[in-house]
């Protein structure tokens, strides 16, 4: 899932300093699971903002609303009235949901309430760790299920660097060396020799190096390619 964390209250308050009517919009999917932007967090942030406003000029009204998912039009549309009625929307979604708001409602003023950090998983209660870099050309097949792109500080594909020591990365003693994990696992499974296999260079153009990603599934399009899909006509504004 996408893992995010809330921005400092000071930063959020600064971004709405000139607005009288603010909507805190929570998202009920990934950021709910990582306790950053769900219903609870939206309610707490809205209360915090109201109290902070009350203690300064007192002129800011802050409401909150949480929808199932900010990154899909269908769910966003359910919040249309609240979004249109706000001077500014504080999005407690990842960067995708936040941008979806202004794509769907171009006249809306939106500021992000979260910093989107990574694709990860909760390794234990209250701890989230990165597991995927979204590189578009998965190599887990060659590394026995451990991602060197996201879990190696240098995203090395050819083994550990000189900074690996005692199974840890030189960047931090709390950071495991991904290649140490890979080698350990391959040894345990008895096929360390697979590391001797030669592979084609990784296709980095599928990652950020190739520009913004886009996938088109023609079998799922409502209209033939080249024609305007009904769902893309206009916006919810």
């Amino acid at each position, binding site marked *: 899932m996408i893992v995010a964390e809330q921005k400092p*209250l000071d930063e959020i308050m600064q971004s709405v300093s000139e607005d009288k009517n603010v909507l805190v919009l929570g998202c009920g999917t990934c950021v709910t699971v990582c306790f950053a932007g769900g219903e*609870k967090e939206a*309610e707490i942030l809205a*209360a*915090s903002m109201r*109290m*902070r406003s009350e*203690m300064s000029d*007192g002129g800011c009204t802050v409401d909150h609303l949480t929808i199932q998912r900010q990154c899909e039009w269908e769910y966003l549309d359910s919040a249309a009235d609240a979004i249109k009625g706000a001077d500014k929307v504080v999005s407690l979604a990842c960067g995708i949901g936040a941008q979806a708001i202004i794509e769907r409602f171009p006249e809306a003023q939106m500021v992000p309430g979260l910093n989107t950090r990574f694709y990860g998983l909760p390794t234990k209660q209250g701890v989230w760790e990165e597991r995927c870099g979204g590189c578009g050309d998965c190599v887990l097949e060659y590394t026995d299920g451990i991602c060197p792109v996201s879990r190696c500080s240098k995203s090395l594909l050819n083994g550990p660097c000189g900074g690996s020591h005692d199974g840890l990365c030189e960047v931090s003693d709390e950071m495991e060396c991904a290649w140490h994990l890979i080698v350990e696992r391959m040894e345990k499974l008895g096929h360390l020799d697979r590391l001797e296999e030669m592979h084609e260079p990784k296709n980095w153009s599928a990652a950020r190096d190739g520009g913004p990603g886009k996938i088109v599934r023609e079998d799922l399009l409502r209209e033939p390619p080249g024609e305007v899909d009904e769902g893309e006509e206009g916006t919810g504004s």
Partner: protein
Amino acid sequence: MQRTGECFEPQLTAFTCSYCAYMSGDTAGAMRIQYPATTKVIKLPCTGKTDARYIMSAFEDGADGVYIIACPIGNCHHVRGNERARARVVHTKKLLDQVGLGGERLDIFFLSAGMGESFAQAAKEMNDRIMRLGPSPLRMGGKEVGAGEAGEQKNGGDETGEQSVEATQ
């Protein structure tokens, strides 16, 4: 009345679990121990239900101070509810600092059912602390009230003991 004229009576909200903590309040009543009358007790099934939302709501709705009363550590009827409450109080204190209310206005106490005297003492401790800190800035239009001013209000009004009522069972 929260505050009239020169008198400041701290409005306290106490969240208790329905086991040890609430029963310690009952014990205080049975022992006829007095504690500040402005303490409003809200019973939770377990302090593991303590939520930053409830605490923030209490402050928004007029509380000058909020505290949690939980079972002693290691003695929670739901095993670790009180430990969770403690962690959430620590987290919420940071939120209150960010908001500007101040984390000092929030605290947690761990009491067993027989500790009626300590139940009253927790209320008095919070009452004294809020008297020192002054009214919630939210009730003062955002203006902080200094300790001196709060002290003057206290001296000008009833003493804490006189604001107390006899706890009832």
